[in-house]
């Protein structure tokens, strides 16, 4: 069922995850989406460890939507691991956060985040932001293979 994951959504907030998936579904982009609830699980999936042992690491998602603030392993730590490994270095990563005052924004770019999206409180704005980023990364952008 989840073979050939195209979008990996790493989001601890159930409501944010629900609204994100809803927005992507509207654009028919959520068919091959995997939602994981923390950074630790995300790392397991990306590097085929733990629960995901046996998965092919080369089977990369086309984009990772990564929430910055999560329990255990946060978004920055996940990003750092992805960029440090030659196998995963080229996967596009979009950081998601609630606040533009986040002190980690600069650090994210230093670590090679492809873009940075502030989740709007306003529902329509939120839907628009997610739709746009989904369309860009899934349709417009040409991922390295």
């Amino acid at each position, binding site marked *: 069922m989840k073979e050939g994951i195209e979008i990996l959504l790493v989001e*601890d*907030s*159930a*409501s*944010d995850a*629900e*609204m994100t998936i*809803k927005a992507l579904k509207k654009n028919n982009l959520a068919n091959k989406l995997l939602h994981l*609830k*923390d950074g630790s699980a995300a790392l397991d999936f990306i590097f085929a460890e733990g629960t995901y042992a046996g998965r092919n690491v080369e089977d990369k998602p086309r984009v990772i939507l990564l929430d910055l*603030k999560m*329990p*255990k*392993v946060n978004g920055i730590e996940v990003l750092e691991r992805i960029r440090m490994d030659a196998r995963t270095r080229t996967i596009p990563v979009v950081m998601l*956060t*609630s*606040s533009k*005052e*986040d*002190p980690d924004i600069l650090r994210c770019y230093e670590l090679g985040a492809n873009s940075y999206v502030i*989740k*709007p*409180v*306003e*529902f*329509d704005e*939120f839907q628009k932001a997610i739709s746009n980023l989904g369309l860009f990364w899934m349709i417009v952008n040409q991922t390295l293979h």
Partner: protein
Amino acid sequence: MALIEKKNRINSPVKKTASLQNDWHIRQLAAIVQSSGDAIFTESIDGIIMSWNNSSEKLFGYSAEEAIGQHVSLIIPPECINESQRILERISQNESVESYEPLRRKKGGERLFVSITVSGLVDEERNIIGFSEIVRDITARRNSETVNSKELVFQKGEKKKRADELVIANKELAFQNEQKEKRSGELIIANKELAFQNSEKEKRAAEFIITNEEFASSNKEKEKRASELVLANKELETQNKEEFERATQLELVNKELESFSYSVSHDLRAPLRAIHGYARMLKELKEGQQDFEANRLMDNIIINSKKMGQLIDDLLTFSRLGRKELVRINISMNDMVTAICEELKFSQPAREIKFHIRPMVSVKADNVAMKQVWLNLISNSIKYSMFKKKTFIEIGSEEKENEIIYYVKDNGAGFDMRFVNKLFGIFQRLHTDEEFEGTGVGLAIVQRIIFKHGGRVWATGEVGEGATFYFALNKS
């Protein structure tokens, strides 16, 4: 003595018929002439020497025989001939020439200064027939005069020289005087300056004396102060230690505040965004969908608004801790913990919870703050052991040399030790809301209170096996 007359050479007539008286007179005159100390000779009008007395022989070195008959130029130096001729001519014209002092020549050529008195010899008709010359040697006198005059000339020269020298010397003196005046002027100024300086020095000396006295007294003061300073330094040392401790505490608080403000904006937006989103989804529901989906959406709105309320409460509690001064009193930890446990047990009637409260060491701490610590730790243990059939919570203390360690041990979900450093951070959570609800503030509050008391916090745990939370307070 004999007046020799060469009659053949003298043209003057001598009277054969001279009376006896005349003859006597002539002999007498002849004797005077012959014995005179002056040289006396006569000469004819044409200059031939007619008579030559003894003194003439002595003076000129010529004997009467050698001189008589010779021209008078015999004794006249060539340079004086003209002068002598002129004198004789003047006498011939009846001019009187009393005496003059020409040069004459001795036998052998030696020159003599002489004084000559010339008188004319006349015949009976008063015609000049010759001259008589009385010659006196004045060489010695002239020499002495010459010497004197030379001496005088020399002396004059000397005087002139000296005068010139004196003029120069005077000028020199004048110049020196000027210089001296100048110098004395300068010296006067210098003296005034010195006088002024001296008075200044005296003034200063007086001031120094006063200052020295002051120094002496201030030295005593300083000694006093030094000992005071030693004391003060010791005080400062302890104060510095305290300040250093406070500084490290402040640094911690600042770090906390920084992450706090960022986290507030982040964590308060999340439930707000959820409420907004679910409310919109509820509004967009189509007819017939309402029963089940509407309930779900409304539940989510309720949950998120409750969560937001909880967040605000926790944040207020957390920030209030920063402002409130600690009031340390002696606390019986056993009494405090027992009361809290009973309260919590009462609020969870469905749960089977067993508390094992060991006898604990009492401590001096802030009563309200310490209640908050125990409440947060024990309620955490109850929350994270909710999926266990029986909840077992042990609470106790351990006395060390300088501190007392208190602990709360549970058999709950536990945690991965890799994330232990995130436990006490504000809004940091090791579980999602779906696993265990929470705001991520409770343990941050615990840490803040214990830090304020000068203590420390830590925890150990294992996933699925439970966790133990520790805090240590200083005995003093």
